[in-house]
């Protein structure tokens, strides 16, 4: 699959956007700038970016609790994402959603869900709408190895298959549901093996390789747009950080050996992609460095924007409950 330079550079750019965003989040969380949970996507960037750059703005995605990478990969605005994390009015959800519930319907982001497996039915419904309307858009949903054990996951895959819906199920298998290895919880060797039960293609992809993810998801998208139904793409990947910020009780090395973390860090998705760009003469190291620095600056600006955005007013508490408003009881 020939991919033009602009798209390859966009992949690099979006991976850097996410990397810088997450590093900033870790930093400001440690300083106490916001609370609650936040689940860093560092190490997994190639999965969301490879998938999302294969889509159009009119296509829809839904995601999960590890929620910053998907909207940024789909072209969401880091300023509004950061403002949401800080609970400010300029956040995507006006400060009502926070880290686990970023959403930007204007670029096809149906929202991230804190309940695992919960967004698969929703994304399936977006694909159903496409089919009923006879339109061209597709939907995709990101979920983890852990969520692949949820009933909602299996129900959605079956429903999408019997109705031949235009959807890509994207499993970002980072190998651990919090501290539990998927090898102890998933009955098949690979999550993608589950596709055969639903009569859809299932492919296992190197989730550290953004181009491999792009190609696999593109095949699924083509199939979806042709009315041939859903696909399951499993990106095997790794989370460098702990499950969530603020989970102080879990110590590094406790449930996964340090050597394993180190081995996966050696397969960093940004390094792999950059190396390919430079070695194949597609871009110079200087061009790659410039993308890195530009995205670092963008995230600095995003943080400044978020810090300067006001908190919601008490009067905002009841807004947005209903489209056709009703009195508070």
């Amino acid at each position: 699959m020939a991919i033009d330079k602009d798209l390859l550079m966009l992949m690099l750019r979006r991976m850097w956007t996410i990397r810088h965003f997450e590093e900033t989040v870790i930093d400001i969380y440690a300083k106490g700038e916001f609370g609650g949970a936040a689940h860093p996507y560092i190490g997994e960037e190639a999965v969301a970016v490879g998938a999302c750059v294969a889509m159009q703005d009119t296509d829809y995605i839904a995601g999960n609790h590890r929620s910053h990478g998907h909207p940024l990969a789909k072209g969401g605005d880091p300023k509004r994402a950061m403002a949401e994390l800080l609970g400010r009015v300029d956040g995507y959800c006006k400060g009502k959603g926070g880290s686990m519930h970023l959403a930007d319907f204007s670029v096809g982001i149906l929202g991230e869900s804190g309940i695992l497996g919960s967004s698969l039915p929703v994304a399936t419904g977006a694909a159903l709408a496409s089919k009923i309307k006879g339109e061209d858009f597709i939907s995709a949903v990101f979920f983890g190895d852990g969520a692949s054990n949820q009933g909602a996951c299996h129900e959605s895959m079956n429903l999408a298959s019997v109705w031949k819906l235009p959807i890509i199920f994207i499993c970002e298998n980072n190998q651990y549901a919090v501290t539990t290895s998927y090898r102890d919880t998933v009955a098949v060797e690979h999550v993608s093996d589950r596709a055969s039960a639903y009569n859809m293609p299932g492919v296992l992809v190197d989730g550290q390789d953004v181009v491999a993810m792009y190609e696999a998801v593109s095949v699924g998208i083509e199939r979806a747009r042709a009315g041939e139904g859903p696909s399951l793409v499993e990106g095997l990947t790794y989370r460098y950080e702990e499950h969530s910020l603020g989970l102080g009780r879990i110590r590094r090395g406790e449930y996964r050996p340090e050597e394993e973390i180190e081995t996966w860090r050696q397969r960093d998705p940004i390094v792999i992609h950059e190396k390919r760009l430079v070695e194949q003469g597609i871009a110079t190291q200087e061009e790659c460095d410039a993308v890195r620095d530009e995205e670092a600056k963008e995230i600095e600006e995003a943080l400044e924007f978020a810090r300067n955005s006001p908190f919601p007013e008490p009067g905002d508490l009841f807004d947005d409950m209903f489209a056709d408003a009703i009195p508070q009881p």
Partner: protein
Amino acid sequence: MPETVFVNAINEALQEEMKRDESVFIMGEDIKRSIYGATMGLLEEFGEKRVLDTPLSENAFFGAAVGAAAVGMRPVVETLTSFMWVAMDQLVSQAAKMRYMFGGQVNLPVVYRATMYYGGGSAAHHSDRSYPMFMNMPGLKIVAPSNPADMKGLMKTAIRDNDVVIMFEDGTLFGNRGEVPANEDVPGGELLIPFGQANTLREGSDVTAVAIAGSVPHALSAAEELEADGISVEVIDPRTLVPLDKATILASVEKTGRLVIADPAHKVCSAASEIASIVAEEGFWSLQAPIAKVASEQVHIPYSPALEKLVYPTKEKIADAVKRTLE
């Protein structure tokens, strides 16, 4: 005025709204063949794309309704109350919360049609009257009609509403007949009943009886019987529980000074509990007697008719409660 059977009123509303708006579609289990009667003829008129039989996967299709609504459709989902339990994550985590949680970015015009079959030996797993649990969850509009005209008018309003609405359809009423005005006989040419407007079905001066869904006919019968004893009962049907027309209830209690609430739901944290609490907080000085709740007993629904008939509000229980408030 023409008489219509309750279940046919549902069908008329669905027919009219699907004809009016192409984005309305319906899905559920065995609806093509209209196993419960409400979807009769829809497949023939609107085709397979808009009338969908689902797998037995409530989580998937309850959630798919949310996703379809989020991108511009107006789904109607047919189910039974008892099957809502297996889709609670989608109802609560997605349908109810999504709009607020995403800062109002999305409208979710979904109607869940949940039929309550009880009173006919369906036993514990098929007899749920679960609206109070959903009243407790912000973000859902809750409708519980008691007669065919309200059923039709509220269903049409629900489908046009831009939020998630759960229509609790009382199965004990499905065969009831009632007058439903023809569209050409109502202002605006269509029967549309706004949410949040209680219906005073019978005026009275001694006691206010607020009755919900299938309890309404029992309350009306009780009121009729008590009239012979010289007791004048005002019967109010809230029709929608969220939003709840508390002004009409409070005004009636101000007039009568006495309140009985009949509710087919289990008595603990029931709709009756909520109405009692509102009147206790906001209408206390009007009360001349303690509020009486006539709700279902706090037991599961037993199979044997000998036991099941003991559980629900009846004409006799309501009449007794009215008399108690007058002692």
